[in-house]
């Protein structure tokens, strides 16, 4: 089995994670009498995971450079408040309610301020030499306090209609047709990437994996995309909502056209986009290469002419930008911005990243691992909630799982044993 995986050049850690996730899903499904693996629950799971998943992508890069960011939850909170005020209090003074530009301006403001907050923390870490743990621990308090100050504690609601689509919900999906289009594009990209990579390696006469492995890998990836879209399309809108949509389009409701699919929720689309972009950044750009080099040996990176201080600022700034995206997703999902939004998210994010195989010692980690880690965490939480497990017991279980995950990782894999890292 191990040799088979090696031939296919599949990350063994990834397979381990996938198996764990599958066990959790099947376990909860059996325990709940088939209520866990349903289109509806999978859909909800993907929406609930989105906010943490987006931040986890950035946290991978932070931890790979041997830093940590404890302030992401607080930054999410302050950004959600700022974006709430921008869209509900400030912009309506200039634009009409639910103006199509409102959500765009709001999001841009959030991204810029998020980047600025991240840069400030990055400057303190990189140039002033204060350990990231301390800077971001301070940041946790500062930004949580700042979140309260934005409105003196008032919760901002209602939010802009278009902005709320970012949080999923009944209208925050792209529907069946577009979901198929996305799936087709994704599968085409998977096949193209596989062919291109193989041709490139062959043109240099490098060893390539056997052709059957190539086919299997591609088929598995494409299959996962297909299964995901089929599942999400199988989750239909409630009849009442479907009626309302048909009414707004001026179509009479019949038994057949009342069946409207959710399709891919917008937050999931955002996660996919962020993950793809950051994976490309991590693997295919100088920036990403330097992030890993710094994590592996900061001295060597410096000697190779890499500006480690500036890279530190950039990585933290990127984290701030991702916090803004997460802030948009989670406030849109709750349809309001409260100053306690994102509380304890830093721990969920770090846990997801660590479960996903990122080494706290730096230099090693993957974006896709962090995504699965986030899904594992959310699955545990949702599953236990579905079974009616006490919240207090939920925390205990999740805490133990985190420790167990890191232990098993240390136990079963030698450091850097991962050939794809």
């Amino acid at each position: 089995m191990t040799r088979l995986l090696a031939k296919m050049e599949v990350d063994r850690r990834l397979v381990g994670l996938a198996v764990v996730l599958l066990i959790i899903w099947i376990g909860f499904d059996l325990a709940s009498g088939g209520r866990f693996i349903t289109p509806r629950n999978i859909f909800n799971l993907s929406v609930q995971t989105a906010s943490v998943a987006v931040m986890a992508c950035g946290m991978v890069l932070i931890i790979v450079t041997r830093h940590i960011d404890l302030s992401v939850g607080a930054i999410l909170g302050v950004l959600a408040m700022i974006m709430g005020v921008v869209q509900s209090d400030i912009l309506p003074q200039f634009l009409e309610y639910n103006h199509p530009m409102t959500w765009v301006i709001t999001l841009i403001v959030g991204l810029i301020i998020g980047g600025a907050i991240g840069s400030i923390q990055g400057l303190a870490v990189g140039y002033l030499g204060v350990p990231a743990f301390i800077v971001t621990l301070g940041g946790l308090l500062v930004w949580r306090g700042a979140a309260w100050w934005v409105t003196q504690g008032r919760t901002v609601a209602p939010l802009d209609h278009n902005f709320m689509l970012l949080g999923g919900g009944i209208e925050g999906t792209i529907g069946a047709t577009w979901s198929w289009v996305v799936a087709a594009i994704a599968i085409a990209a998977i096949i193209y990437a596989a062919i291109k990579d193989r041709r490139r390696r062959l043109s240099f006469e490098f060893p390539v994996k056997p052709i059957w492995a190539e086919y299997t890998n591609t088929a598995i990836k494409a299959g996962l995309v297909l299964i995901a879209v089929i599942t999400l399309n199988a989750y239909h809108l409630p009849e009442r909502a479907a009626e309302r949509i048909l009414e707004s389009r001026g179509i009479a409701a019949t038994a057949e056209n009342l069946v409207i699919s959710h399709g891919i929720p917008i937050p999931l689309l955002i996660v996919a986009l962020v993950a793809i972009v950051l994976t490309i950044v991590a693997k295919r750009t100088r920036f990403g290469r330097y992030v890993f080099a710094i994590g592996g040996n900061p001295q060597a990176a410096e000697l190779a002419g890499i500006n480690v201080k500036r890279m530190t600022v950039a990585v933290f700034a990127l984290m701030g930008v991702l916090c803004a995206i997460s802030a948009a997703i989670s406030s849109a999902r709750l349809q309001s911005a409260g100053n306690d939004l994102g509380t304890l998210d830093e721990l969920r994010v770090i846990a997801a990243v660590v479960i996903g195989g990122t080494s706290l010692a730096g230099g090693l980690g993957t974006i896709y691992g962090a995504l699965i880690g986030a899904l594992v965490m959310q699955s545990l939480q949702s599953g236990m909630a579905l079974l009616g497990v006490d919240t207090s017991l939920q925390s205990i279980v999740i805490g133990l799982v985190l420790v167990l995950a890191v232990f098993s990782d240390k136990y079963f894999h030698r450091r850097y044993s991962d050939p794809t890292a």
Partner: protein
Amino acid sequence: MPETNNSNTDKNPLVEMRDIHISFGGVKAVDGVSIDLYPGEVVGVLGHNGAGKSTLIKVLSGAYQADSGQIIVDGREAKIENARDARDNNIETIYQNLALADNLDAAQNLFLGREFTDKFGFLDDAAMEHKAREVLHRLNPNFKKFTSPVSALSGGQRQSVAIARALLFEARVLIMDEPCAALGVHETRMVGELIDQLKRDGLGILLISHDLHDVFDLSDRLHVMKNGKLVGTVPTKDVTHDDVLGMIILGKMPEHLMHLAGPGATNAPNKEALQ
């Protein structure tokens, strides 16, 4: 400059350091030392810990700046204020801790800081791996682990990667700080073969070591330092281990080589050594 290997007199030195002074808070770490290095030559810089050899070399590699003195590269005075300046003058340093990122593979390490990119600005890993295979194959035909992180390589293989990296930068002067420290017998021999090959290619190599045996086997000339001063420069073939030990410990040129002691050299047993 001292008259040295007869074979070198027809060439100009690759690099010369003249009358280098550097002190840290009143302590003279390097006190008026002059050394030189010719193409195709391996020169050892020897001395006890604290003799000033590492400080002197760090001036050349750009880690420190001299208080006074000149660095002449290819007959022209060069300003070396940081590692980048040194690199611009084709001077590469291979540090004792090897300066590799353990989690990256050989090709990624070789090209760290000057990666190949395609027309969209993305890393061209295949092209880098291709070049890495070519360079490493020349240095070490047994090198196979191109896709493993360098932490999975043996000490000698890691040293090959570090040297290949310097070669890719078109180094003409290679400074090696304790290249055989922490290496086994077989690995040490491998590094020795590497050095011989680089020598044939016309590079000048400065070996910093406090292990007499490594340096004796590999070098053509020896610069010996003590207490920040140059004791003397001697051709390796004209001296014995004991002669050199005397230079290191007593700071004294061997009697039969007294005529080789050049400017900046301490010709006679110096006072400090006798104290």
